[in-house]
């Protein structure tokens, strides 16, 4: 991993289209400004971690759960 030291107001370029700027540092928190093409997905690491967790959790279905879901959906559509 490339490690760089930056002060508030200083920037880092990744390629020529992605710019990350240190906006503010308070205690252990850093606020970053990011300029990047709209075609890039940018998200906090926690979002990806949440989706991974949800996938792991979702992989626990048994056949009985599935059957109940099917029953409930037909009940829902009758209502």
């Amino acid at each position, binding site marked *: 991993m490339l490690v760089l030291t930056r002060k508030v107001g200083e920037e880092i370029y990744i390629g020529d289209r992605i710019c990350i700027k240190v906006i503010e540092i308070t205690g252990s928190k850093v606020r970053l400004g990011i300029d990047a093409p709209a*075609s*890039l*997905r*940018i*998200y906090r690491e926690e*979002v*990806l971690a*949440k*989706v*991974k*967790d*949800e*996938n*792991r*959790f*979702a*992989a*626990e*279905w*048994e*056949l*009985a*759960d*599935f059957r*109940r*879901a*099917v*029953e*409930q*959906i037909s*009940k*829902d559509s009758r*209502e």
Partner: protein
Amino acid sequence: MNVHVMTTRFGAVEIDDDRIIEMPDGMAGFTEQRFILLSPDNNGRFFWLQSVDNPELAFVVTDPTAFAPGYEVTLTPDEYDRLGLDPESAEVILLTVTTISRETGEYTINLLGPIVVNPAKMTAKQIVLENGKYEIRYPLFTSPAPEPSRKKEEVRPAAASLRKITTIYSKL
């Protein structure tokens, strides 16, 4: 060519290999890259996304647009490439992972991490949406959830279950 896919829930499933969906990036948190879609009889809404290489790994997926009106996913150029989609004439199928809450037994769908399938190339990718617009646990039903049951079911023998399973490839 027909291949046999071993599964813990359905026994051995025989399937044409052109129905295998390639997911080069896998599902988030998992390394498996090949899946098939299975649909039990008498059910139009839920499908099993079953791993070809890991008998235990299967997700229950459904079409999010049937439950979340106005649900939209915009793909990036990189995702078009990854899926082998033609931006001019792309047709995709959207699926979402369905979850049951351990606490309440409620069913929810993950609108934050949809699966986009390119039926023409049989490729798929799970996309993580960043904009905070969609929930990771969007409730599926309006009526109260039935009693949750987490007990493990017996796996049905392959011969019996094979007849019960059809793929939705024709619908793709």
